[in-house]
């Protein structure tokens, strides 16, 4: 066996995996997107760009998704960072493990069940009823964009907390002391030492949350009361309700393209940031 053959053999498992799990399913989606809807729903082979020409019909869904995904990511970051900071920098090591486990515990239950819990918390008999006791009346929470944001932050929080936690945990705490000894205010220390050194964690967390949010459909459907419509919801309806597989595939291909573009821009930005700092990488 030559070295060349051996190399091929070593690469084979990964190659087969990529072929079966990535190339084949994506090819099916691509082929379907050039087909047509059968009269009673489903798919018939064809070669037409009609599905792509129809894409403007789902423009609002793309707009909603491209607004929500960055906003949701930002909201999750703002909530997650102080939590991760507290856990990594301020918490006694004896408590760290148990507190970290507490962050993951909700993940052991399906997001579906947890979203249903939020329906009751945000519903008229939940928080609004509590606020009424304190004299604040007429608050509407459930089935609003606010409810969707709460659901998203709640659902994706651990994905944001962990990468940031890891980055901050690796941070050499003596640097903070040094900064303080050299006369920096706590805020200056944070902005010039802590934050830059946790950029890698922030970048990873944002990436994870953003990518998953782009395909989100359950939280808008359950907490948005069906009035908040994302690409994910459009896809569910196209495949399960109107059974327009051809158009559904075109929407899916478009979503993948949009993701490729946004993620590429994002990675460029991070790369530029890390060009000035060798310890920053995104994954």
């Amino acid at each position, binding site marked *: 066996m030559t070295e060349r053959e051996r190399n091929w053999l070593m690469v084979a498992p990964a190659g087969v995996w990529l072929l079966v799990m990535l190339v084949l399913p994506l090819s099916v989606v691509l082929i379907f997107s050039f087909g047509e809807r059968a009269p009673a729903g489903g798919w018939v082979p064809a070669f037409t760009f009609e599905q792509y020409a129809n894409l403007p019909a789902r423009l*609002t869904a793309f707009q909603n998704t491209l607004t929500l995904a960055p906003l949701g990511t930002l909201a999750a970051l703002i909530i997650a960072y102080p939590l991760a900071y507290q856990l990594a920098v301020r918490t006694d090591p004896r408590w760290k493990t148990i507190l970290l486990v507490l962050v993951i515990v909700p993940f052991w239950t399906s997001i579906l069940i947890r979203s249903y819990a939020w329906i009751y918390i945000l519903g008229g008999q939940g928080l609004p009823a509590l606020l009424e006791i304190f004299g604040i009346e007429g608050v*509407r929470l459930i089935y609003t964009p606010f409810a969707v944001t709460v659901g998203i932050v709640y659902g994706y929080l651990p994905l944001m907390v962990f990468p940031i936690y890891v980055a901050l945990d690796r941070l050499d705490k003596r640097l903070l002391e040094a900064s303080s000894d050299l006369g920096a205010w706590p805020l200056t220390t944070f902005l010039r030492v802590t934050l830059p050194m946790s950029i890698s964690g922030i970048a990873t967390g944002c990436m994870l949350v953003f990518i998953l949010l782009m395909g989100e459909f359950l939280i808008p459907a359950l907490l948005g009361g069906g009035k908040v419509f994302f690409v994910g919801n459009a896809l569910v309806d196209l495949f399960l309700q*109107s059974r327009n597989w051809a158009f559904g595939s075109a929407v899916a291909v478009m979503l993948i393209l949009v993701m490729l573009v946004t993620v590429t821009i994002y990675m460029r930005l991070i790369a530029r940031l890390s060009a000035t700092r060798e310890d920053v990488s995104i994954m």
Partner: protein
Amino acid sequence: MKDKSYISKQKFMEELRRYEKGSVTRRHFLGVTGLGAATAVMAGALPGLRPSRALAGSHIGDRVVLATWPNYHDPENFETFTEQTGAFTQVNVFGSNEEMLAKLQAGGSGWDVYVPTNYTITTYVDEDLIEPLDMSKLPNYDPEAFDARFADAGIVDGVVYAVPKNWGTTGIASNTSHSGGAAIDSWKVFFDRTMDDFSGRTMVHDYQLTTIGAALNYHGYSFNSVDEAELADAEKLLIDVKPHLFAITSDYQPAMRSGDAWLTICWTGDGKQLNTDIPEIAFALGKEGGELWSDYYAIPKGAPHMEAAYALINFMLDPEVNAREVMAHGYPVADSRTNALLPEEILNDPILYPAAERLDALEFGAAATLTDPNRAELLARFKSA
């Protein structure tokens, strides 16, 4: 030696079904998630839940797979069926006819019996996804006993493909403590008040058939219209109404119960359940029209347990069994033999058995309505507006 803490298979199944009944009640919930199907698949995959082969001595095999709607059977009837035949009924619960059709079109469903609604049957026949029924294997089906109105859709070109299960209507549930005491019984009032004093309190289905149908009824058009001008009028109404809606969801019971919402498009069974628990929530049919529907038992092409499928349908059509079903799920039947066994208060219930002249204003959903791509696109525009 017997362990006292051991839970019997039967007991466990009862508990499981109770759990399913309590937690998995809503078409929308299931439609969004497929959780019902997952639960059923899991139940089928746990060997301890199946009757042992020793018990299953009968010729029909040890199981029958049923695809149906949530809360649509009396679990005790399945127990009895298993005792009589040795075949365990594996229940797959679905969220919508479209989803059911999509699964059968994709192939390999593994179902033996399913429960299509009237307007889907011709599509199943066209797509060659439904088995013509051998009536000699269904001695409990007596065509004479069934109201033809609810049995006709099962017969296509003279061939019986499906036999009636239950029927019902799509009407309006309103919380009368906010509507001035009277039930809202008009689609005109439904949408006008949504844009007025019910603003932020109304729900419509996340379902093109009923939501677009209601908007068409508002304008006095047919519930089934696929006419472009009429659909444009319906779309304008829906877009105008949208900012005033509480939600677009087919899972409307929780919000009606909590008092967050006061008005919703509503199916018979939900209307009955809401009214029973909260008497001020009334159910009424829209006087301009609305939907009348009928569900059927049918066998998909290539069902793996064909004999068991016939046995289950025949068993369910036994009037005694069927009457127990009605008592459990609260949907009316079209079988006069079954109705003869039901208590007066059910037969006289205006929600379950509305006066005949009210039914005459209603329409059955049409196959063209279900598959019309323009209606599907209209709903997508409404939801994303």
